[in-house]
């Protein structure tokens, strides 16, 4: 294992960020040609936030929670209610009217996103207190239950004047610029990485490895579990808010259990316990669905139409690939490792070694 020096790494990282920004500006400048690609990238970035938030809980603290969809719903509705322009609210709530206190409550997007996180975190605090006493699969099923309860409340006719019940919320203004999606996502992920690297993060990992031993070392179990849960809920709420802005119109059906399962599969694909893995997983999974789109179109080979290729086939292939990952490649893409320049450097050295070396001595013999 050879290491690169610090300076090279910083240069490489800055170069990567610059390339990403330039690439995005190029796509953004030619928006009319690349709007499809951009929308896929935006969705991936939003999913990356929730996937890292889920990983913080599942992969780093060892708490298996399946409540993501519910917390995303809280965030999404908070942002939607507060950012729909005041003048178009009458049109959105045309059936039941809007609650009096909310009619003129308006916040700029960034403030609404923070508030979305705070609401979701507050809900997480309330729910976490009783639920975090449960273990493994009971915790999973209880949080899943909570997310369904939240969804039921959102759709309930009794809250029509706040959430617009089953009609959903429309005309949410989109992002002012593409960079905001990526900027906010990157900021959220960066904050989570910083938390994971702090002493709290190390305490989370200790709890994951062995609760009893962690407690013996003086880690307050319930406090740290609660903290991990609330932090995860906060970022899940923020990403839910971004999803609402991305989708422009939401209803309670957008936040079904299927959404949680999508996020879970991203985390599994990327590697449970790897932040960069979750980010890669989010991009791969969202883009993968689009790449596989040719399976949905009829395929004609030499005048003969292959019978399997029709609408829906892509998702079958996609789920088969996921099953293969779950069964035979359980670590996912990254396992618990993280992306690092050293890793890339060593990977390249290992695989391109012979071509890099000047022909001399032993290597040449092996080559011949």
């Amino acid at each position, binding site marked *: 294992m050879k290491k690169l020096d610090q300076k090279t790494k910083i240069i490489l990282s800055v170069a990567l960020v610059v390339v990403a920004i330039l690439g995005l500006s190029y796509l953004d400048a030619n928006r009319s040609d690349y709007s499809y690609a951009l929308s896929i990238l935006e969705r991936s970035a939003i999913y990356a936030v929730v996937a890292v938030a889920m990983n913080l809980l599942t992969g780093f603290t060892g708490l298996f929670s399946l409540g993501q969809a519910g917390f995303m719903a809280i965030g999404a509705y908070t942002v939607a209610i507060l950012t729909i322009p005041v003048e178009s609210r009458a049109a959105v709530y045309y059936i039941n009217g809007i609650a009096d206190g909310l009619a003129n409550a308006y916040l700029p997007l960034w403030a609404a996103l923070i508030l979305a996180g705070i609401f979701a975190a507050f809900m997480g605090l309330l729910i976490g207190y009783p639920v975090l006493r449960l*273990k*493994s699969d009971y915790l999973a099923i209880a949080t899943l239950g909570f997310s369904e309860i939240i969804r039921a409340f959102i759709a309930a006719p009794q809250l029509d004047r706040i959430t617009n019940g089953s009609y959903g919320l429309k005309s949410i203004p989109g992002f002012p610029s593409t960079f905001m999606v990526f900027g906010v996502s990157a900021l959220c992920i960066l904050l989570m990485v910083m938390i994971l690297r702090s002493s709290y993060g190390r305490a989370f990992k200790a709890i994951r490895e062995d609760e009893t031993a962690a407690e013996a070392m003086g880690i307050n179990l319930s406090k740290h579990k609660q903290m991990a849960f609330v932090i995860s809920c906060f970022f899940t709420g923020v990403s839910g808010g971004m999803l609402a802005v991305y989708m422009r119109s939401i209803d309670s059906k957008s936040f079904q259990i299927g959404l949680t399962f999508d996020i879970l599969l991203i985390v599994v694909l990327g590697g449970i316990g790897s932040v960069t893995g979750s980010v890669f997983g989010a991009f791969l999974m969202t883009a993968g669905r689009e790449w596989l789109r040719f399976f949905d179109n009829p395929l004609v080979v030499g005048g003969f139409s292959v019978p399997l290729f029709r609408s*829906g086939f892509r*998702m*079958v292939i996609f789920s088969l690939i996921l*099953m293969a990952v779950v*069964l035979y490649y359980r670590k996912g893409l990254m396992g618990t490792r993280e992306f690092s320049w050293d890793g890339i450097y060593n990977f390249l050295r290992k695989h391109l070694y012979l071509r890099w070396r000047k022909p001399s001595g032993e290597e040449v013999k092996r080559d011949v």
Partner: protein
Amino acid sequence: MAINTLLQHGLTGISLGGAYALIAIGYTMVYGILRLINFAHGDIFMMAGYFMIFAIASFPWYVAVPIVLIATILLGVLIERVAYKPLRSAPRMSIMISAIGVSYLLQNLATYLFTALPRGYPSIPFLKKIFQIGELSASLVTIITPVLTLVLVYLLILLINHSKIGMAMRAVSKDFETSQLMGIKINQVISVTFVVGSLLAAIGSILYFTDRMTVFPFSGMLPGLKCFVAAVLGGIGSIPGAVIGGFILGLGETALVAMGYSTFSDAFTFAILIVMLLFRPTGLFGEKVTDKV
């Protein structure tokens, strides 16, 4: 509320509860033996609905029903072999994720094969016959469901308490590793568990969908989760518990719908779950488990 309306709703609730109970048994048995929440069970139940649609298209109902039962059993056992068996020594979370993956696969497969649009469920004429008792009216299926449920549960309990394979199942659910050391063929026991679970899910699906009349790829998801809740409510691993849990949920849900809170009927199920997990995590009839450190 008039007494008649009350009875009418009670009948609907018991019938729904019966179908829930049959599915809940599948969850409770698999959890008892593998410690796995079989998320795919609800989708097996959904697939059974589709099998019925296709079987009845070419056969009379008395041939179609056995075909559906056999096809569902094959599906259940196949899933166990392919998706759960390779993970037997893996951490519990991996098997659970695999179950979620299977559920995802089955839903996508059903969407691909049968499209996402709801399909009409065939009605077996004699099940739909309307009965009139006093002022109450009910189709035969409403009355058959709870009766059939109780009969099947009785048979199942006989099987578990008085047969060799039943004894093996009880042993495995008590202690997986020791029973293996005692010479019990674990894979055989697990297969039988899945056979029984899928069979009951298939019967439950016929009874449930005859009342609902349509099947779509996601129609197994929520009933599946609710039946898992029923199993937890009764005490996971206990068969009578699952049955009682099923009836409680069926009745409670029908009561909420009757009172006009139909949007909360799903939430009610999960609220029960959470209250139960907090105050009595072992359920109504579950055994006390001590955590080994």
